[in-house]
């Protein structure tokens, strides 16, 4: 830190005018300084080795640790209830993990260990609760809810279908709709209407002519569009 202050005057006025700005020269010096510290660090670490021992691994036996972890993943920590005993670092979970390790070493089966804990802490300690009179709703509640809501949905949809009536449009309405939509169907509807209204006065050929006319106009339109 002292050496930093030695370098600062080299940055001249800038350091004084703006306390947070470090001139380019100073930043280079700081870079070298930190590089020096970084290079020195391993040396320091090697001194430290003589003073401190290496951390003792939590598990002397990885097999036991693995079995303990698979067991505790399905167990609830009672202190921090949304964490499993495997995840939690509460004192309670530390104790339980220790006890499970001891019991595994004593050749207890998984069932025996689980029973040991359930005897003391109840089913609440299990994330996977057993089927019992008290847990029936827990097990089947979602299914009941699903069935009920499916029944309700089907009933609702059927009811809605009944409400929607089949609508038949009159010719005038069709024409208006076609006009609004303004596409080929308009022409066809017009022809259709013409046919209906004028069929009595005109002969067959004229309507045919109109049909052809309409076809031409649509193809023209199409051409324009392209």
């Amino acid at each position, binding site marked *: 830190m002292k050496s930093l202050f030695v370098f600062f005057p080299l940055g001249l006025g800038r350091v004084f005018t703006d306390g947070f700005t470090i001139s380019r020269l100073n930043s280079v010096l700081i870079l070298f300084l930190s590089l020096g510290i970084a290079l020195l660090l391993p040396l320091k670490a090697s001194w430290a080795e003589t003073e401190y021992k290496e951390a003792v691994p939590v598990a002397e036996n990885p097999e036991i640790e693995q079995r303990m972890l698979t067991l505790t993943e399905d167990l609830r920590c*009672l202190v921090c*209830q949304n964490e499993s005993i495997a995840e939690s670092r509460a004192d*309670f979970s530390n104790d339980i993990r220790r*006890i499970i390790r001891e019991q595994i070493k004593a050749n207890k089966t998984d069932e025996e260990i689980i029973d040991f804990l359930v005897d*003391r*802490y*109840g089913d609440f300690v299990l994330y996977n609760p057993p089927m019992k009179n008290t847990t029936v709703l827990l097990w089947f509640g979602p299914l009941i809810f699903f069935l009920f809501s499916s029944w309700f949905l089907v009933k609702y949809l059927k009811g809605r279908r009944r409400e929607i009536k089949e609508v038949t449009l009159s010719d005038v309405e069709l024409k208006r709709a076609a006009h609004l939509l303004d596409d080929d169907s308009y022409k066809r509807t017009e022809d259709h209407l013409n046919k209906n209204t004028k069929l009595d006065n005109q002969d067959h050929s004229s309507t045919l002519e109109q049909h052809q006319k309409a076809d031409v106009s649509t193809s023209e339109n199409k051409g324009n569009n392209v």
Partner: protein
Amino acid sequence: MRYLLPLFAFLVLAVFLFVGLSLNPRQVPSPLIDKPAPEFELYSLHEPDRIFSSKENIGKVWLLNVWASWCVACRDEHPLLVQLANSGVVPIYGLNYKDENTTAKQWLKHYGDPYIASVVDPDGAVGIDYGVYGVPETYVIDKQGIIRHKQIGPVTVDSLQNKIIPLIVELQKQT
């Protein structure tokens, strides 16, 4: 009908949530209620030579209070325990849970000692047998040595008056 159905659904949900609000998720029902209290033999804090066995208390109703000097909530309930001990309603035994003997003794000197005896459970092994997962906890044990009630968290005036003392009186009447 069209508007009543959602209203009904809402009411059902509201009732469930309201009941949920008044429940305490920390109050995990102990499976040890109405089961024999786990036996233990531990030395007493003040007389390290004296081994106290839980069997000694067969024939009387007693309280087992789990406490520690590092436990802040224990300070809240402690004056009540001292009062209860002075009233002579029930003998109170302490389970000094994962504590240092010297600090535990100092603590009792400072806050008062309501215990007939306080036994030492340095690594919490007996605590685990009793399903302790937080301190303080208090167990009401009857004449047959059966756990009748577990108070999770500090004893309060309310829990003493409405639950613990009436229960003790009733249990003392039994043979």
